């Protein structure tokens, strides 16, 4: 019996909801129960966006993640807002290109990933979210296998299948860090 | 003996509840005659309004739906979208169509919804006992404008044909009257055309029929008919306000 509560937060446009959907599909394909809950409304347009993803071997009760086991912070306001909410022993992944401060918590595992820099260096500008996800897949027990193609193909819409390979490459960069 | 006049088949035998001298009866007959002439009774569904014609569902022999006040064009939209091959008409008064149902009227028109709207304008709320209508004339005395319609207080009458004809959507807009034989003949033609347009899938056709309300106008039926001639028609000029097919033809000739 295990349940992983994941919270992804960042600016609108950073691919927060997309990344969450990818993780949910990854969990689903691996036989877990999953839920994905976005923040919705005007705040999504250019403001902060976040989504709750739950991956569980049990039925998912409340889909709301207040106390994440895993926090993925893609900008400073998100880290400021949610750092304190992570459960002791949890994990914080953050984009260290966009967040210059250090994580203050000492009772969590911290992964500082310069995702935005790595994305632009490797000509995958805008795919910092997927670089982070690559690392998340590798480090979180909720995800069993390294394969991401099937899950990704579910979330990349049919008319954007050309983006599948670049997203996979970005995931690889994160996974191999 | 030869039959020179008969009740249209599309009218039932139910006795009409309208007041003596009311012209709703004439308009019902014109609608039913158009249905007969075009042989569409079996596929026609009518939508009755809230107002004096609320019980029109008892008078037309075709299938009928009774709509909420003002909502007939929306109900007719649903019917037509569900049954594109059936003929759908609404029969509405001035309060129903031009006041509470204005949004539904304008939007059905602008969508060029392929329905036929019979709009009976008698410048008063009849069913509730003679209150001011959106089409009551300036100065007209009603129960709720006892000193005459004061345009400074409650604005001007709404001229539906003029208003709708400015939209790009509707196919056909015409105003007729039923106060004398000549006008009734013209009204008969217009109503028939409004149904033909639908059969030919041309779209939204609205016929405004200037009608009388002797009871609530406080006049004899005869006086009411001349009041139409002297007061209503000058304010609401008769004629074709929009005929898109004709416009197109003219365009082609150029």
């Amino acid at each position: 019996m295990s349940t992983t509560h994941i919270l992804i937060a960042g600016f609108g446009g950073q691919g927060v909801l997309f990344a969450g959907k990818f993780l949910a599909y990854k969990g689903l394909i691996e036989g877990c129960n999953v839920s994905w809950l976005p923040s919705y409304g005007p705040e999504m347009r250019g403001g902060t966006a976040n989504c709750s993803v739950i991956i569980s071997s049990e039925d998912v009760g409340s889909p709301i993640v207040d106390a994440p086991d895993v926090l993925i912070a893609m900008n400073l306001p998100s880290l400021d807002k949610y750092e304190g909410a992570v459960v002791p022993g949890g994990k914080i992944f953050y984009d260290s290109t966009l967040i210059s401060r250090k994580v203050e918590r000492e009772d969590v595992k911290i992964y500082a990933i310069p995702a935005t820099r790595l994305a632009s260096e490797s000509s995958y500008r805008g795919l910092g979210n997927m670089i982070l996800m690559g690392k998340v897949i590798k480090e979180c027990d909720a995800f069993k296998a390294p394969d991401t193609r099937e899950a990704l193909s579910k979330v990349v819409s049919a008319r954007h299948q050309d983006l599948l390979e670049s997203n996979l490459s970005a995931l690889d960069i994160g996974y191999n860090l | 003996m030869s039959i020179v006049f008969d009740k249209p088949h599309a009218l039932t035998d139910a006795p009409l509840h309208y007041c003596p001298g009311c012209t709703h009866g004439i308009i019902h007959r014109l609608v039913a005659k158009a249905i007969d002439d075009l042989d569409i009774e079996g596929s026609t569904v009518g939508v009755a309004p809230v107002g004096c014609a609320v019980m029109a569902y008892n008078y037309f022999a075709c299938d009928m739906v009774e709509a909420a006040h003002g909502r007939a064009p929306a109900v007719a939209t649903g019917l037509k979208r569900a049954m594109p091959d059936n003929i759908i008409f609404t029969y509405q008064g001035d309060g129903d169509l031009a006041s509470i149902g204005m949004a539904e009227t304008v939007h059905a028109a602008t969508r060029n919804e392929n329905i036929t709207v019979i709009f009976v304008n008698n410048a008063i709320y009849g069913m509730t006992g003679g209150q001011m209508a959106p089409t009551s004339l300036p100065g007209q005395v009603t129960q709720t404008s006892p000193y005459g319609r004061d345009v400074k207080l409650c604005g001007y009458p709404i001229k539906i044909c003029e208003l709708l004809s400015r939209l790009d959507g509707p196919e056909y807009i015409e105003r007729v009257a039923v106060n004398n034989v000549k006008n009734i003949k013209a009204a008969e033609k217009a109503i028939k055309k409004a149904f033909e347009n639908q059969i030919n899938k041309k779209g939204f056709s609205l016929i405004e029929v200037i009608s009388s309300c002797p009871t609530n106008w406080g006049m004899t039926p005869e006086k009411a008919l001349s009041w139409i001639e002297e007061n209503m028609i000058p304010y609401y000029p008769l004629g074709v306000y929009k005929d898109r097919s004709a416009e197109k033809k003219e365009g082609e000739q150029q």
Partner: protein
Amino acid sequence: MTDKVLMKGNEAIAEAAIAAGCRHYFGYPITPQTEIAAYMAKRMPKIGGVFLQAESEIAAINMVYGVAAAGKRAMTSSSSPGISLKSEGISYIAGCDLPALIVNVQRGGPGLGGIQPSQSDYFQATRGGGHGDYHMIVLAPAYVQEMADLTLRGFDLADIYRMPVMILADGTIGQMMEPVKMKEYTPLNISKDWAVTGTKMKRVHNIVNSLCLEPEQLEESNFKRYERYKAVLEKEPMYEEYLTDDADIIIAAFGIAARVSKNAVNEARKMGIRVGLIRPVTLWPFPKKAFEKAADRAKAFISVELSMGQMIEDVELAVHCRRPVYLCNRVGGMIPSPEQVLSKIKEVEENLKK
């Protein structure tokens, strides 16, 4: 598992409606249900269906009325303020004994309120909302899978009982994604000989109408309608029971509140508190008997709601006030946390010991 797809609750409703044979959808944009309209706008033209963005919620419900009168399956969706506008039309649909499906993805009120989840339209949905004596069957999904399943069921119930059915969801279930598997669906074979499809000159005209100026006749038609409602009350209550067999405390909660409560029940059980959950799936008919029976054993009830306490009245009625019923709630778009529910459970447990 991979035969399931992740769907938003709102999309699941739309897809299920299409599976149920609904080819006429009329909507008007309002958060947080707009995905239903967007989904229908995309899908309907491809399957020969009708999607129409109406000029108002009022027009939309009356278009539904027209399609329903024609004997076809029709649907509209909105969120709380829009449902108030539709209430006139819903009353007419009920008064004409027409089947239709109305979706309310609730948001906080009153007035324009907010756009975050709420359950504060419980009274409006279960008590009528519009004027006159009438009911809707009210279905309350708690999972995205149920958004689909109850939509299928809702269309059937509407046709069987010739009455409007409402899916009473909330912003959370509407917006969230979960795995969904569309059920195999066999359309009902129900004759709609009352529909206004044109006489074809072969029968007397059908009339779809709610006007009746003779009090005796109008009374009679109300009596007849309530005979049908009686059958609904007897046959159609649906609910889920969770760990109620030995429970001293029973939580009553539907939709998102039930999911939150389930977490709290699990935590309380770990602490040795005997607590269970009854989750009404139909809010009308309310699953009275389940509560009546539970009251034989359980000593107290807690109604967990995203409202100022609306369903609690039905719980009190169902247990005939034999047991205390406490309220645990958040409103205005806030959602009770499992911790809040757990602390209420502990508080009630303490009260019971006294």
